[in-house]
């Protein structure tokens, strides 16, 4: 048994699935791009963010929306594997059981990263510019990867537990909505108090703010620690529950 080797063999398998049903990547990429076009060219003129470049302002939130919708496919793929007895087959073989879950997690990271690269490319065409240093970019990438990891482990739970395909992916709807009630599109100070309190204290706002200031100013201030705490916290809790459910189910 070699867990790393097994994880990569299984990663190759799921990546093949994705290449064969490119709609999974296309949907995950097109929807955020459509939001970006809509907000920049339709609503953008009416939104006052205090910055001259609205694409710059918008991009971090758009990236998070992409990840939130991307992980629903992770839940979907895992659900199918469970339902078809493929997980049972793997689990009756002399291979490392965690390799099976980790391969789904890595597939999510790789496919979400591809979507993000495409979206950033489109944003560049639309006028996105950043003077951030390599170091700041590395911090941004790290933040996005952590966010992916957190939501992916969250997605593993419905993937293992759902009773239907719809149930497996429905969990991501609220995740996709979170950026809309955050600082992703408009500054929170224009919102009514109750909404503002929620917006300012939910993870998306701090993650968006820290990515935004890394890209604009090259540093993120205090927000980044809160953002990191959210991502790591969600990852740990979701991982704990996912593994527990997996052990019970398997």
């Amino acid at each position, binding site marked *: 048994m070699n867990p790393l080797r097994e994880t990569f063999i299984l990663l190759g398998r799921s990546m093949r699935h994705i290449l064969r*049903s490119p709609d999974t990547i296309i949907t995950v990429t097109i929807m955020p791009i459509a939001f970006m076009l809509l907000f920049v060219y339709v609503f953008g003129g009416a939104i006052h963010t205090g910055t001259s470049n609205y694409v710059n302002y918008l991009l971090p939130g758009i990236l998070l929306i992409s990840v939130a919708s991307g992980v629903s496919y992770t839940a979907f793929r895992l659900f199918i594997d469970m339902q*078809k007895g*493929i997980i049972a087959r793997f689990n009756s073989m*002399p291979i490392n059981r965690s390799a099976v879950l980790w391969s789904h997690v890595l597939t999510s990271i790789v496919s979400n990263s591809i979507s993000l690269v495409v979206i950033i490319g489109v944003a560049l065409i639309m006028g996105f510019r950043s003077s951030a240093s390599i170091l700041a970019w590395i911090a941004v990438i790290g933040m996005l990867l952590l966010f992916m990891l957190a939501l992916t482990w969250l997605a593993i739970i419905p993937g293992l537990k759902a009773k239907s395909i719809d149930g497996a992916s429905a969990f991501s709807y609220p995740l996709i909505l979170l950026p809309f009630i955050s600082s992703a599109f408009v500054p929170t100070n224009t919102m009514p108090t109750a909404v503002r309190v929620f917006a300012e204290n939910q993870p998306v706002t701090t993650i968006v703010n820290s990515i935004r200031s890394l890209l604009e100013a090259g540093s993120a201030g205090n927000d980044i620690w809160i953002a990191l705490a959210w991502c790591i916290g969600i990852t740990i809790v979701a991982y704990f529950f996912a593994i527990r459910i997996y052990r019970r189910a398997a």
Partner: protein
Amino acid sequence: MTKDIVQVRNLRKSFKDTKVLQGVNFEIRQGEIFTLLGQNGAGKTTVIQILSTLLKADSGRVIISGYDVNNQPGKVRASISLTGQFAAVDDMLTGRENLELIAKLRADVSPKQTANGLLKRFGLEEAANRLVSTYSGGMKRRLDISMSLIGKPTVIFLDEPTTGLDPEARLEVWKTIKELANNGTTILLTTQYLEEAEHLANKIAILHTGKIIANGTLDDLKKLIPPVKKEYVEKQPTLEEIFFAITGKKETN
């Protein structure tokens, strides 16, 4: 010398209020085809899942190839192979890719050759490079079984391998099972078809109301049929008659 390669002792398993297994005992010798016969819901799949380390029993002991399924599940997995009740094949891969995937996971030294050999043996060469989603039920089943042979397991569990197959495909699966047993592989197979058990098995065990109510060769089981009835039956009693004779008798107890 033949020895017991599978030993099942006093196996119990309940799901919430449903007592499924209530003290199941049997053993299987090396190279034997052992058939677990039972009606829908008798607990056949539950037994297979416990033996293949996918499910924990509430109590009892299972030893496979000398290893306890509870204490050394890894060792057990290395010597078994499972073909579940529903074909566990990857629809989004081709037949060849499915076989190569399992071969690689089992650290086979030449996955390509292994896949080629099995495709040929199971008559799947022509369809080898097609996505499995285009396969018929029989082809999926054959692929499923061929995937289970990779890594030369010493014990193979087949949970209702012929359910849903047409008569021709069923004959093919039977042939494969016999070949495997001739090569020394031990086979535990479940079925609802009395005829299948009659045709294939060296040993037949009937699982009913959570227990093995009869266990032996077909001849052993034939002796269990009430003698009064035997006088009036001209032909040999079929397993079907034996089955209903025994299960009927046990239920009225």
